């Protein structure tokens, strides 16, 4: 009798599955635990590490040295204390919303009662650059960031294609650590900030004052492997000029990571479409963070919101609503690019807590 009763109790427990362990997913898992202490919570991530603070990745270039433990949002004990099962190196290949099942790459199926998509976004590479992607380094994970830092010799030259705010955050750190940085491109410069053309010139000048070389009106014609004894990469611009670089990084904004949602029966545009409660078109699926497009009644359109504070709030609201709440996402951080008293660029997207 006792075991039957226990089984019945277990059967009633919610199983919240959170895909992604970034800021949104990590915050959601905590909120889920606080609001439903009897539940089973599983976080899935394709990475090998626990939740990590990507905003601090530029520190991999610090001469003081660091390892991945310095970047953890929480120590391993945190997950045990909060009874959050964090499963890493897990790739979701398909979501069967009708049967509330996740299909995993290693051929295991995982059932859920409520699902939060918080898988974030990966680097976006414009079509014109896609043919050169193998000559561009990645910087999205700790392993990738560390690999770049180890490949870059002292005072080395980094070329950034695009120059979004993630890249510019890295650029200012690289300058501080004594590296050279050149930014090429106009279209993605300062993304996701919406900067008027007149202002863009002013901010570009400030970037140059900060020590970052900007070729805003140039575009890449070709990228080649550097010749022996020269730098590793050779870039030919559309104006015929060339640049040699040790490392080339693409910073042209983010592309939501949701290939696994194809065929799930959930409405998707560029991201997962959710209402202001962050609920998708499936009653058991929510989305938060860089992966979702939220309906904005004021703008009468779906739109993305970026930045630490925004995605953290999304994680909180989604978890609140997954546990029976009814809250709309409403407060977002200021999205304006600013100039500090010392004359440097600053962005709310660089802030984290």
């Amino acid at each position, binding site marked *: 009798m006792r075991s039957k009763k226990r089984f019945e109790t277990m059967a009633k427990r919610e199983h919240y599955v959170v895909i992604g362990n970034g800021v949104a997913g990590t915050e959601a898992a905590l909120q889920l635990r606080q609001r439903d202490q009897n539940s089973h919570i599983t976080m899935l991530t394709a990475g*090998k*590490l626990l939740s990590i603070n990507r905003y601090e990745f530029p520190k991999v270039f610090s001469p003081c040295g660091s390892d991945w433990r310095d970047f953890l949002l929480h120590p391993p004990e*945190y997950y045990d204390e909060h009874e959050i099962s964090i*499963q890493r*190196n897990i790739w979701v290949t398909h979501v069967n919303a009708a049967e509330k099942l996740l299909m995993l*790459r*290693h051929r*295991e199926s995982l059932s859920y009662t409520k699902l939060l998509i918080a898988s974030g976004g990966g680097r976006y590479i414009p079509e014109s650059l896609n043919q050169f992607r193998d000559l561009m380094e990645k910087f999205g994970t700790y*392993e990738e960031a*560390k690999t770049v830092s180890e490949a870059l010799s002292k005072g080395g030259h980094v070329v950034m294609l695009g120059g979004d705010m993630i890249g510019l955050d890295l650029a200012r750190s690289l300058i501080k650590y004594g590296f050279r940085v050149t930014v090429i491109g106009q279209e993605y410069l300062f993304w996701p900030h919406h900067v008027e053309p007149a202002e863009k010139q002013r901010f570009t000048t400030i970037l140059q004052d900060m020590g970052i070389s900007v070729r805003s009106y140039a575009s890449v014609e070709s990228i080649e492997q550097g010749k022996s004894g020269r730098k590793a990469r050779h870039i030919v611009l559309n104006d015929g000029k060339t640049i040699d670089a040790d490392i080339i990084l693409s910073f042209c904004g983010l592309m939501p990571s949701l290939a696994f949602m194809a065929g799930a029966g959930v409405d998707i545009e560029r991201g997962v479409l959710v209402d202001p409660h962050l609920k998708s078109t499936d009653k058991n699926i929510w989305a938060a963070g860089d992966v979702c497009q939220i309906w904005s009644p004021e703008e009468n359109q779906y739109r993305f919101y970026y930045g630490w504070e925004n995605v953290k709030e999304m994680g909180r609201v989604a978890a609140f609503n997954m546990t029976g709440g009814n809250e709309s996402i409403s407060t977002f951080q200021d999205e304006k690019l600013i100039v500090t008293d010392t004359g440097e660029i600053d962005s709310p997207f660089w802030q984290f807590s």
Partner: protein
Amino acid sequence: MVKIGKHKTDIQIAICGSAGDGTIAAGDILKQAMAKAGYNVIAFDIYPPEIRGFGKCVARARITSEQVYSLKSESDALVSLNDSHAIAHVQEVGRYGAVIYEDTPISDIAEGAHISSHLAPAHLPYGVAFREISERVTGSARSRNIVAVGYLAGLYDMPVEAFHHVITQKFATKSQALADSVLDGFNAGYHIGANTFHLHFDRIGTSRGKGKQSDLVMMSGNAAVARGCMDAEIDAFFGYPITPATTIMETLAHEMPKRGARMLQTEDEISAIAATIGAGYAGARAATATSGPGLALMSEMMGLGVMAEVPIVAFISQRGGPSTGLPTKTEQSDLNLAVFGVAGDGQRIILAPTNVEGCYKCAGKAFEMAEKYQTPVVVLLDLYLSNRYEAVELPKKNPFAKNCSKPITQKTNQSSYKRFKLTNDGISPRAIPGDEACMHTVTGLEHDEQGRPSDHPVMHQTMSEKRHKKLLGAVNHRGITISKRFGDKRKVDVGILGWGSTFGEILEAMIEARKEGIRCSAMKVVMLSPLPLKPINAFFDDCGEVLVPELNYEAQFASLIVGATGRQVHRLNRVTGSPMRVREILAEIRRLADKAQMIAAQ
């Protein structure tokens, strides 16, 4: 060529799979290669009683640059070749340890059946497509264990040349195509492992041999016994297979005929001991090997060996008991049977080595002692020691003496020779049957000096005293460690007294305790009968509290010591089928140290 770091090496790897997955073979390549590269290696394999198909196999190897004495409680990496078995072992992986597993199972698996969902947050997951790589590179999934070893070697920057050497040697008798295929599988895994981002912090550092190929040989306890037998020039071996002693017979069956010696598999253990006694009586260096159930069957004949003063050697590898018990699990519960298991007062020599090198020495010295003291000598092993592998450096010069029997100085006539002559040391000059000048009688009955049956009360008293007295000299037998003390040599709060395979864990615990500032000392007792009472009593005199950890329920060694010395001990007994955990012994040392301090303060 991998650059070896300058830091010390201490990494423990566990490989877990199902029987038939090649788990033990993978572990064997790992330990052989690392020993070849000059590292100290202690390894222990666990396998199921079933032959094939579903039982669990675990191969563990601790690879170090410094001398260590046991496996660690926690492994630094676990390789899963079968998740259904390996999931239970995830918990043995330490903080920031790696769990390496198959990432592309061949078929759909049930929820929760994949190991990735069982990792602790502090574990590091390394999923690898072992099967796919093996199929792609070797044309078969069968080499996925080799791919796994290669990946492991690459991931931990292990010296690749040593692996190539061991694999080539291991497959030397197979076709070249097969050997090449296995090497391809290893190299494919190695390449992927070496190019995987290393999140773990353990690295292979310096070796004992400082990177040079060394004279260290990876050897199991049973292999060391067989080698000791061969170096002692064994003439005859009789045995009947039983886990975990079988490999002694298997090895000798292969080696003895090369030297013209004889090995016979008998129909049972009774025949084996009977034939051994017969050969020993005839002057051969003779031995048998069995486990606890076999020793039970041999008890009666063992008594004949004592009474007839026939030199023989019996290697007994203990396993979980009683009866069939736990055939593939370790235990130290046959001590009472070994020491007391004969009819009457049948004392004989009992040796219990504590490590693989000790197995070699005890095996060879057992023949010397059997001849010198004219008695059966039991060498008491256990599964953990029989199957444990260590990197050992064997002596270049054969350390074992030949023909240790007390010589006959005077040959007069047939009637004057006394096979059981009463002497000061209790040892009689020994003649071999067939010597016309030394005709004598041998019987299981009590007898007089010439071997003729006698139930005279004085004769039985005298002969009993002779058979016991002659053994006393054995505690001073040269060239073998009878007992040895480690750690603090002065007064200490805690002493740990141990025997057999558990002593490795005892030493590790003592070393840890000393690092914590606890005044402690450990003593191993290799000769369990007769007991070396002088050093044991001296040890008790120096220790505030004495702890006796052993793998049996009845505290057999502790009781033996208490009975012989009248001293008090603290018992620590486990019968889990696994070696004693260092941390359990350490916890007990801490408790006793506190107690000793409190008593001292009063």
